[in-house]
């Protein structure tokens, strides 16, 4: 009968509400063991990984989060020491370098296997490097190969025969690489993921070799040669890797799994770490660092990082054409105050572009904080006491950290030079567009080294350097970097040439170095064998979990 209808709908509705409520609440009951203590029991490392990886293909990927996953899944010929970054045997158990420093012969391990059990040999490298140099693949790190003979020529289509490129499999277990010039940092490059090998059969199973965006890197498909293999990839949720039983050194791998969390928000990640949901967080908000420091919390690890934070100056801007003006700007940034009062994470004031100590290189710089001299320079340039200096704009991409620094620098320039500077933040892609179009006056920039060598920093400012973007061009500088340095007989001579080049750069000051990055990591005390290094590169195959007495904090 219909009179019941209203009552029954009401009861149905309340039933639905009841079910929904209980499902919401039911989820909340249960054990309260957090990820860290559970992970310590099961050998699972919970890793805060910044953002969602865009690709796990080593020849396509570009970002840091991707890097952290790929190094677990794959391995190059050579590994680095987790502390000193000295080359250590990887897939290659040993190697010889010819006397002229141009020919490298690698002897591969006979027990190296792909994660599906396939044998792993020298031909894999030849094929993989051929793939990495296909222009259609859009490999942004193709330039990492350019120290190899004819690699650049092949990539740019000047030669079409890959045979002429300096890489050869002498036999199944011997790989010979011929370089254009002696390149002291070549062994380091081999540990960069862009030179990792990929499994030919798997790649070709899901598409052609030079095709982007095939599904070969997904869970269930991907085959690697690293200590771990991909088990699960839930977008925006987690990436899970587990031990690879075929890894040549599998017996010494002590972690069972690593769970990577794409968190994006540094504040969220820090809270997750504090609540015991993560073993590791790699992005600590600046204001939190002080709190950790004042508590003497052992979880906070601060290490120098091979990266420089600087301001580019568009030298075509009328009021910034005069290098005295640029120097004056550089000399009125109180870097000590910035690093101590704003950044607060042990960052090192930078007075040159290359971080000191890079492969034994210590740049000589006459740059220092000297408002008196700066005012004089500005006066010489025609702006005594900042009078008549047009309003100038600092461009930075939207981010709290960049904003803080810009606000402080704006005020320093106002105070010391009496010039008006405005700030402009742009959303990331707009900012990239503005900078590459040179549609800016002063622009925030940063550079993280791909490998440990001054060259990686100084070749940015070649006339035609894609990353120059300042409009500054000095043929003498180009010649030093491109011609004299590669031809240097000894490392001392080479570094001397770099010193000379860097001095020229600093004298003209198309870029204002500000500080040298540090890597700020939060690492749970139970994580062992985690060593800070200037590339901030963990060695997952060595890490293990062992709670201290008394267990978790």
């Amino acid at each position: 009968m219909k009179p019941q209808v209203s009552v029954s709908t009401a009861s149905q509705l309340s039933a639905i509400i009841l079910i929904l409520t209980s499902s919401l609440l039911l989820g909340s009951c249960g054990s309260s063991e957090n990820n860290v203590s559970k992970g310590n029991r099961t050998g699972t490392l919970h890793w805060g990984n910044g953002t969602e990886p865009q690709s796990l293909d080593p020849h396509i990927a570009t970002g840091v989060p991707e890097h952290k996953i790929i190094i677990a899944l794959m391995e190059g010929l050579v590994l680095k020491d987790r502390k000193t970054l000295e080359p250590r045997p990887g897939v290659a158990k040993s190697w010889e370098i010819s006397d002229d420093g141009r020919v490298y012969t690698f002897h591969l391990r006979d027990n190296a296997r792909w994660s599906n059990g396939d044998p792993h040999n020298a031909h894999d490298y030849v094929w993989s490097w051929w793939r990495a140099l296909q222009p259609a693949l859009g490999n942004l790190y193709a330039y990492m190969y350019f120290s190899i003979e004819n690699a650049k020529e092949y990539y740019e289509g000047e030669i079409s025969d890959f045979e002429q490129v300096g890489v050869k499999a002498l036999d199944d277990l011997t790989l010979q690489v011929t370089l254009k010039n002696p390149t002291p940092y070549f062994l380091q490059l081999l540990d960069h993921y862009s030179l990792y090998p990929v499994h030919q059969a798997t790649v070709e199973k899901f598409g052609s070799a030079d095709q982007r965006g095939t599904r070969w890197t997904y869970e269930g498909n991907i085959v690697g040669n690293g200590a771990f293999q991909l088990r699960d990839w839930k977008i925006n949720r987690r990436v899970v890797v587990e031990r690879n039983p075929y890894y040549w050194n599998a017996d010494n791998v002590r972690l069972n799994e690593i769970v990577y969390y794409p968190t994006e928000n540094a504040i969220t990640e820090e809270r997750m770490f504090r609540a015991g949901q993560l073993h590791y967080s790699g992005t600590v908000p600046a204001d939190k660092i002080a709190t950790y420091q004042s508590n003497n919390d052992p979880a906070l690890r601060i290490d120098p990082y091979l990266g420089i934070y600087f301001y580019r100056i568009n030298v075509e801007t009328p009021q910034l054409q005069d290098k005295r003006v640029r120097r004056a700007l550089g000399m009125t940034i109180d870097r000590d105050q910035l690093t101590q009062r704003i950044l607060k994470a042990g960052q090192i004031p930078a007075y040159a572009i290359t971080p000191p100590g890079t492969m034994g290189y210590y740049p000589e710089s006459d740059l220092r904080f000297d408002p008196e001299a700066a005012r004089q320079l500005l006066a010489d340039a025609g702006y005594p006491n900042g009078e008549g200096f047009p309003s100038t704009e600092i461009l930075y991409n939207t981010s709290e950290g960049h904003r803080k620094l810009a606000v402080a620098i704006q005020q320093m320039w106002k105070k010391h030079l009496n010039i008006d500077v405005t700030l402009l933040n742009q959303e990331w892609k707009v900012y990239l567009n503005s900078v590459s179009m040179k549609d800016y006056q002063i622009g925030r920039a940063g550079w993280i080294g791909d490998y440990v060598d001054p060259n990686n920093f100084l070749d940015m400012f070649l006339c035609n350097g894609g990353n120059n973007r300042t409009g500054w061009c000095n043929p003498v500088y180009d010649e030093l970097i491109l011609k004299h340095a590669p031809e240097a007989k000894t490392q001392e001579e080479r570094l001397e040439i770099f010193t000379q080049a860097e001095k020229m750069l600093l004298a003209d000051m198309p870029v204002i170095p500000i500080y040298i990055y540090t890597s700020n990591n939060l690492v749970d005390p139970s994580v062992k064998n985690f060593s800070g290094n200037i590339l901030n590169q963990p060695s997952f195959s060595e890490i293990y979990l062992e709670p201290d007495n008394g267990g978790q904090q």
Partner: protein
Amino acid sequence: MLRFAFNRLLQAIPVLLIVISATFFLVHSAPGGPFSADKAVPPEVIRALEAQYNLDQPLWQQYVSYLGDVLQGDLGPSFKYSGRTVNELIAAGLPATAELAMYAMLVALIIGISAGVLAAMRPNTMQDYLPMSAAMLGICMPSFLLGPILVLVFGIHLEWLPVSGWGDIPGDKILPAITLGTGYAAYIARLSRGGMLEVLSQDYIRTARAKGLSEPLIIFKHALRGGLIPVVAFLGPAFAGLLGGSFVVETIFQIPGLGRFYVQAAFNRDYTMILGMTVFFATLIILFNLLSDMLALWLNPKLRQQAGGES
């Protein structure tokens, strides 16, 4: 009723078409392409990438072929997540977002309606002022503020609930649902108070009283249905808003939902992703508005039979 729904869906077609077209040309005219990066990208790489995603064709040609694909339900490949299709990504993000929206709505309805009804039962007393003042704060309390406060209190200090996650740790859905639901709860409280006040002053409530029915029976059986019609009409836009507006909450609580995709796509100039999400959200908005209108019709027997004189 069906006819009403059909007509509304018919009207939705031009709306969707305009939304797609406007968004298409909007995103393509925004500065910065999908492949620009921090480190300079060699022009040959850009060319190779553009060829692969047909970005080297004239814009109108891209537009036509995109429309064709959309009509077949194919939203194209994502530019950013190499190898994933937009359909796949939406399917990956939807469950969490939909679930979150549902719980948030539940929170909003339970808190909002009880507060609104309580307030309406004794207007202009403390029982009215207290929940309504709270509601006012709730409306304007941004989730980027409420979320962190809840996390600090319940997650870090009291250690009652997880600070993030979705379905990983028991109870990790509670704080996000509350954070997202509060603003809507506040709005629903105001709406249901207004609706209930209106209904409680109606003659038929007096009739019910005169019949000797108890107060709870009057409130729940006689008043609630009419009093909640404004709330029901608000449900559609609210649910669409919950689905689309969950970005902040998803970020704070590390929830693998659609909101994060949308914002990431916009920042990354992932053209197909932006377009796909826009089409998807626009469809949802239209659908939910339709559903809530139909629900409001269904609740009112008179309109139910007329199926809406004027749509």
